[in-house]
């Protein structure tokens, strides 16, 4: 007789909490990397990287964005509004679809809380939970939670030039200079005159290409260049990828400090 008279489901079936929702919240932030772009002359790779960082962390902003996940059951679009201050405070409220409307997220540094109207609860999200698999999307928490400046964790080197979206781009190869990064190597295609990243490839330590980000559209908003559409793909997997669209950004917005508190999640 075999060892399981009773069929116990495999351990792996257990515990796949939904963390896909975190992505939208964080992805929007990452997309904004390299937002502001006054025209400049040629820089060293390191200087260029610093410029990208400088532009990525502007003051306050309020942003409406959407994410479309191409899942097995069809496409799903989630729309949200985010209030962001610097690189470590963010508050997001979901607007669509109806099921997710009213869900709020608060990120303070490395900590994350979520509020759901359905349960009327503030729930702390532990790092362990966020490391679980991500439902259907091409992203993981690590893809988006990174909020350190690239110039502090990567060493940049020139890796050629290429035209992307009809813009001449410099390719930088970023190699991690600290151990705790999600991707050991990134190649970024930078529109040098606007300091905008138009394409990115993320590699593992072994040099294996893992994920790609392709910007599909760049628009000027309030006088700044913004990547408004991007496609994110897990290249190891078949599928349509995950699409981001930034619908509007309000730069230099006035955000009351009280918003970045757990109490505001319930309001």
């Amino acid at each position, binding site marked *: 007789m075999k060892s399981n008279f009773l069929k116990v489901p495999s351990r792996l079936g257990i*515990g796949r909490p939904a963390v896909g929702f975190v992505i939208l919240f964080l992805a929007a932030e990452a997309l904004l990397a390299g937002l502001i772009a006054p025209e400049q002359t040629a820089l060293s790779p390191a200087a260029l990287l610093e410029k990208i960082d400088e532009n990525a962390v502007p003051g306050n902003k309020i942003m409406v964005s959407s994410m479309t996940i191409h899942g097995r059951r069809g496409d799903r679009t989630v729309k949200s509004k985010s209030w962001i201050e610097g690189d470590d405070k963010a508050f997001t409220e979901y607007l669509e679809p109806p099921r997710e409307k009213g869900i709020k997220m608060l990120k303070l540094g490395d900590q994350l809380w979520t509020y759901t109207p359905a349960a009327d609860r503030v729930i702390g999200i532990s790092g362990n*939970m966020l490391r679980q698999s991500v439902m259907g999307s091409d992203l993981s928490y*690590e893809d988006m939670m990174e909020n350190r400046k690239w110039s502090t964790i990567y060493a940049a080197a020139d890796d050629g030039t290429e035209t992307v979206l009809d813009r001449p781009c410099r390719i930088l190869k970023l190699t*991690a200079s600290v151990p*705790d990064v999600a991707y050991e190597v990134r190649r970024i295609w930078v529109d040098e005159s606007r300091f905008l990243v138009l394409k990115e490839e993320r590699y593992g330590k*072994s040099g294996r290409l893992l994920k790609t980000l392709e910007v599909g559209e760049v628009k000027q908003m309030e006088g700044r260049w913004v990547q408004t559409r991007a496609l994110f793909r897990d290249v*190891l997997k078949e*599928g349509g990828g995950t699409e981001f669209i930034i619908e509007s950004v309000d730069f230099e917005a006035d955000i009351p400090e009280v918003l970045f508190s757990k109490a505001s999640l319930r309001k």
Partner: protein
Amino acid sequence: MIIPKLALRNLIGNGAKTWLNALVLSFSFVAIIWGQSIFEGMDKEMSKVTIDQEAAGGQYWAGVYDPYDPTSFDEAPAAIPADLSAEAAEGRAVPILIVPGTIYPKGRMMSVLLKGVDPGQSVLKLPFGSLKGGSGNIPGLVGTRTAKSAGLSKGDTVTVRWRDAAGTFDAADIEIVDIFQTQVQTVDVGQVWMPIQTLQEITGRSGQATIVTVPEGAAPKTYAGWAFQDHDVLLKDIKSFIQAKAMGFSIFYVTLMAMALLAIFNTQILSIWHRRREIGTMIALGMPRGRVIGLFTLEGSLLSILAAAVGAVYGLPLLIYMAKHGWVLPAGQADSFGLALNKALYPAYSLGLVIMTILIVLAATTVVSFLPTRKIATLKPTDALKGKWS
């Protein structure tokens, strides 16, 4: 002493009939022992394969490790205590590193546990040896269940992605060097085995493990940050299952016994009836009835011993053969995609089982042999001598 001698002489002197009875009875013996041993074998097998392939003599679990809590896997791995490391170097412990990962068979995405183990280990009886050598790709080993759900065959290459201790992603191709069959789902479902050194290197967890399995007989020690789990924990589910099953099978045992006793009872009744003249003669010659009853009861008991001996003649080779080669189950499991359990079932004979069986049969035989002899107490020797059975 005269009674036992007489009983034995009567028994042997009865010739073919005795041997026939002994043969029938011996058949019950062998059937009881074999049937019981098959069930015990099945039970033992359940524990044995789990011990052989997973639990061994117990496991040390690192830190927060909980096999039922996937969120504990990232945090759990810890440096192997020096003692255990030394034991492992000498083949007396097997560190296993467990890292959550994702495999991408044919573009699909599947969560798995990457399990690193020393291919040269000898504590666990799984074909980890096949992870030795190989060039280029990382060698990987999966069970039939994982192979089926991921659609993997021997020689296939599959991309696997993981995060190292610092959280950095990486991916590589794993070559499935072998696929193993096991009854123990928990070393198969959703798992990919690879050399522990490779897994430690690619995850930056040099010298770390999640569990350390020690062979049977190893005395549990205390290591800070590691908790020893013995068989009470690792085999708990199996034990309570076996306990429940043993209950059910005791009825089988009782029924087989009843069958053997029926045979003896029958034989005894005939024997007494058939030898009524002899009984009459003995009583007429002055033998106390008690001794006559004793004689016949003893004859019945001796028959069971004789039966045990006869059973041993043909039963032992059979049982030994079974123990050695197992009882090969008929085919017909092809439809389960090689998920067949052990193809042969090995009966388990404990000395206790055999002795218990013999003792119980002997005791029961004696009682059953005695019952028909009570008639002797009321027998009129004169009638008996005439062949009448009043």
